[in-house]
C-alpha cells in the first residue's frame, strides 16, 4: 500500500482502514437501492471499534465490504496492512461460528493457514497456539458437533487469530450466547486484543457490549446507511459493567434519533 507521505501530528494514530465515500448496493438487488452511501470512516491501528445500528441497516454489509468479500459500488476501501506471506491482513469471525463439520477443531483453526506460505509443522504450531489463546487446547481433536455454542464461537475466533491478522472483523460473534458465556468471551477477547495488538472492528447490536469492549463506538443509521454518531470511550480495561450507564444511554439516544430520522423526517 503506498500511502502518501504526510507529516501527521504525532498524536494522530496510524490508520489501519480508511473508508471514503463508500457506497454499496447488492448486485442482485434489481431496485439498485444503496445499502451504504457516503460512508466515511477511519480506523486507527490497534484500536477497538464497535459498530452499532438497527437491524438491517448494513452492519454486516460493511464488514463484508471491508473484508473484501463484496466490492463497493462507489468510494474507496483502503486496508493499510503490510502484506506478508505468513499472515492475512484481515480475518473474519462470523455470528454463527461457521465451522466445517468434517474437520476436527485443530483443522478448522488451521483452515486460514493453508492459504499462507507455511510449512505443515508451522501450521500445526500456529493452530495450537491460537487454540491455547482461546482456552481450547484440550479440544483440538474434537468434532465441531461435539462442542457447546460458546466453544464453537471460540474456535471461530481461534481460526481468525491463527492467521495473525492486522485487522480482526467480528460480526455479532457473541449474540447467540447466554449472558454468562458472552461475558466470559468478551473478557477473553479483550485479553487477546491487548496481547496481539490487532485492530478490531466489532459489529454488535448490544450497546452494553459495545460500551464494555470498545474504545470507540460508531453508530450507523439512515437508509442508505452512514456514520451518524461516534463516541470515544477512554476508560481503561477492565471496565466495570455497571458503570457504563451514561455512555450506553448516549448511544441509545443517538440510535433512536437516527432511527426516527431514517424513517423519513
Amino acid at each position: 500500500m503506498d500511502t502518501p507521505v504526510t507529516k501527521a501530528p504525532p498524536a494522530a494514530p496510524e490508520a489501519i482502514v480508511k473508508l471514503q465515500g463508500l457506497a454499496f448496493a447488492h448486485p442482485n438487488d434489481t431496485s439498485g437501492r444503496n445499502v451504504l452511501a457516503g460512508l466515511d470512516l477511519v480506523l486507527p491501528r490497534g484500536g477497538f471499534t464497535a459498530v452499532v445500528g438497527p437491524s438491517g441497516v448494513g452492519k454486516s454489509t460493511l464488514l463484508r465490504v471491508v473484508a473484501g468479500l463484496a466490492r463497493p459500488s462507489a468510494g474507496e476501501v483502503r486496508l493499510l496492512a503490510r502484506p506478508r506471506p505468513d499472515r492475512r491482513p484481515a480475518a473474519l469471525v462470523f455470528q454463527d461460528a461457521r465451522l466445517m463439520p468434517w474437520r476436527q477443531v485443530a483443522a478448522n483453526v488451521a483452515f486460514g493457514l493453508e492459504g499462507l506460505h507455511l510449512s505443515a509443522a508451522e501450521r500445526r504450531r500456529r493452530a495450537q497456539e491460537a487454540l491455547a489463546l482461546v482456552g481450547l487446547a484440550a479440544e483440538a481433536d474434537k468434532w465441531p458437533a461435539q462442542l457447546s455454542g460458546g466453544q464453537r464461537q471460540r474456535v471461530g475466533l481461534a481460526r481468525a487469530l491463527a492467521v495473525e491478522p492486522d485487522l480482526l472483523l467480528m460480526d455479532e460473534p457473541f449474540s447467540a450466547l447466554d449472558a454468562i458465556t458472552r461475558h466470559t468471551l468478551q473478557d477473553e477477547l479483550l485479553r487477546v486484543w491487548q496481547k496481539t495488538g490487532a485492530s478490531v472492528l466489532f459489529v454488535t447490536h448490544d450497546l452494553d457490549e459495545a460500551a464494555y469492549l470498545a474504545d470507540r463506538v460508531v453508530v450507523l443509521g439512515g437508509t442508505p446507511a452512514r456514520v451518524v454518531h461516534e463516541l470515544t470511550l477512554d476508560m481503561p480495561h477492565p471496565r466495570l459493567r455497571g458503570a457504563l450507564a451514561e455512555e450506553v444511554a448516549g448511544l441509545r439516544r443517538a440510535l433512536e434519533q437516527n432511527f426516527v430520522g431514517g424513517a423519513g423526517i
Partner: protein
Amino acid sequence: MKDLPAGGPPRYPVLLSAAGLAIFLGVWEATVRTGLLPPAWVPAPSAVPLALVREIRNGIWITAVGDSLSHYATGVIIGSLLGITVGAAVALLPRFDAAQAWVARLLRPIPPLAWIPFALIWFGASQTAAAFIIGVGVFWLNYFASQSAVRAVDSGLIELAAAFGQGGFFRRLWKVVLPAASPGIFSGVRSGLGQGWMAVVAAELFGIPGVGQRMTEAAGVLATDVLVLYMLTIALLYGLTDFLFELITNRAMAWTRQ
C-alpha cells in the same frame, strides 16, 4: 413379560430368525425330496453346496466371478467418477448446466439396459461392452446425487473460504465443496454399486462371459442347482461390495455421526 401384548418384541429375535430360515429350507428340501416339485424346476437346497464344489473343482466358478468382478469394477469406477464430475460441474458452472440441460433430459430417461444392443454392436460380447452398460446406469445415479449434493452446499461455507483466502475455484472445490457434498456423493455411489450388479447380470445374459452367462448355460440344461448357486453368488458379491463400501463410508464420514 406377561404384560407384553402378543405383537410385542420377541425375546430372542436371532433365534426366531434362524428358526424361520431353517423351516423355509426344510420345507423346500422336503417338497423336492418327496417329488412334489421336480428338480428340473427347483433344486433341493442341499444340492447347491454340491454344485458349488463341482463348479470350484472345474474352475468355472472362479473364472465367472473374476470376469464379472472385473467388468463390474471397471463400469462402476468409470461411471461413478464421470457421474460425480459431470454432476458437480453442472451444479458449479451455470453455463455448462444450461448447455447440457436438454441433452441430459433426452438421454437420461433411456433405461441403461436399453443400451445393451448398441454396446454389443460397438464392442462385441466383450468386457468393454459389459463395463459400458454397467457404467451408463451408474453414471446417471451419480450425476444426480452429486449435482444435488453440490447445489446444497451451504453458501456460508463458500463465503468462509473466500474470507480466508481459499476462494479460488479449485481450492474452494477441494476444501469446501467436495467435503461438504461428500455425504450425498457417497450415497449416490452406494446406490450405483447396487444397480451395477443388476446390470452385470443383464449384460451377461446376452453372452458376455461372467456369472450371468454361466446362468444362461445352466438354464439351458435345466441345471437348476447351478442356477441357484450363481444367484446366491451374485447376492454374496452384492452384499460384500455393499458391506465394504459401508466400511469405507463409515471411516470417511465419521464426522456425520457425532
